[in-house]
């Protein structure tokens, strides 16, 4: 089964780049997950200022340029894993957030762990 993990944080509060020690710790986690054959894909996202929200409201599609000032937390990066259970995915998320707690003083945020729908799940 596949899981998507997304790190979310308050962009206003966590201004500035993450500390190098955190980046090193994240790289190490990624390296280990690659060796374990579980990490399929990952990426960090530019601040929401560079993005846009395409919304449907009242049947109308509108485009709002970033930053997403209305949002409490904004996705900052994602990773896709092939794992064997939801518990494993939660553990992966836990390790990811532990290094944030350790290396980024004052960090507040969350890691959303979601299972990806498998084509084989249809019709079962």
């Amino acid at each position, binding site marked *: *089964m596949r899981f998507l993990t997304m790190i979310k944080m308050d962009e206003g509060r966590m201004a500035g780049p993450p500390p190098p020690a955190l980046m090193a710790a994240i790289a190490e986690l990624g390296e280990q997950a*690659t060796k374990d054959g579980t990490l399929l894909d990952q990426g960090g996202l530019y601040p929401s200022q560079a993005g846009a929200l395409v919304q449907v409201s009242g049947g109308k599609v509108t485009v709002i340029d970033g930053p997403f000032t209305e949002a409490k937390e904004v996705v900052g990066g994602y990773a896709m894993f092939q794992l*064997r*259970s939801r518990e494993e995915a*939660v*553990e992966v998320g*836990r390790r990811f957030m532990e290094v944030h707690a350790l290396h980024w003083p004052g960090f507040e945020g969350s890691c959303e762990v979601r299972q990806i729908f498998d084509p084989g799940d249809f019709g*079962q």
Partner: protein
Amino acid sequence: MTDETAHRSVEAVWRLESARVIAGLVRMVRDVALAEDLAQDALEAALQQWPETGVPANPGAWLMAVAKRRAVDHFRRAERLERKHALLAHAAVVDPSAAALDAVVEDDIEDDLLRLMFICCHPVLSTEARVALTLRLLGGLTTKEIARSFLTSEATVAQRIVRAKRTLGEARVPFEVPSRAERTQRLSSVLEVLYLVFNEGYSATAGGDWMRPALCEEALRLGRVLAGLAPDEPEVHGLVALMEIQASRSAARTGPRGEPVLLLDQNRSRWDQLLVRRGLAALERAETLPGPPGRYVLQAQIAACHARAVTAAATDWARVAELYAALAVQEPSPVVELNRAVTLAMAHGPHAGLVLVDQLRTEPSLQGYHLLPSVRGDLLARLGRAEEARAEFRRAAALTQNERERALLLRRAEAAVSP
């Protein structure tokens, strides 16, 4: 957190760490059975403590430390017994001092994992034993899960694993990466086990037991692990590429009613492009390494030809036929020859394929194989030899075990008419 969820969380952490822990322990105690027992002790300790204390910051190191302490206890006990009975236990050759145990450092874990892979797939073991041991020790699957995957009983699998561990002990299989001379053959045994596990899952029909598709994922994962441990082996990357590309077609392989959809009829937009990309990248790594392509690299190259073709019609059949010719040299087999005939027909017309198929008609191993008359029927029909084509389709229909395929073959027999 309820007891059950706490239990499941601990087990999930265990699964992420268990192969490394067991590999490190085997190096320490030189005994697969003992290493697994010690690792189980560590898991028990974790199940007791973590729900209270929380998961430690470095769970792998925690599990290893507990297992090491148990190992020291074990050897002290064994030593005392030995003095008492003046017996020479096999354990006596191991230095039980804490210093010796501490010599197992993080850095060596990679080598330990590679050694464990070679041991689990050792030629003294039967293929079934290799598969069970690999899934148990490297995949961290329970005997119950292995039994379910292979549609057999838990007792059978448990016994298979116990016997395998005993065989390894009796044969005094050393815990080492095989020497140059032996390495190619030993590596091909590991690759064979991984591909066998993959195919066991891949051949399962959609909508079946979830454990069987999970086998594909596990084989693929272990292949990726092996590629990290033995990065200079082109065949390892070749197998990974082959599995990634085959797995990319999972969603397209079956129709809405669960019927199989053949490669050329598949909706290519349903191929998983992430896996295709990963497969092509693995193949590229294999191709940059020196040496002529082996059987897995060749099969991956064939799979890549299909993966790169935007439509079935856009397939580079001349290249596929070339690759099958190379594969037939590496791995001479009538089934490979039959595939080569099909691709020759695609590349150079039905007559080119028929020449080769006709040579295969006397092949004893293909006598009950429905694809031989099915392919021949197809080529004859395309050449306008309707009467012969009909007879071949009927013969194929009588041979196939699959109802849907039989119906299709009979329809094709009906449809074959003289020009």
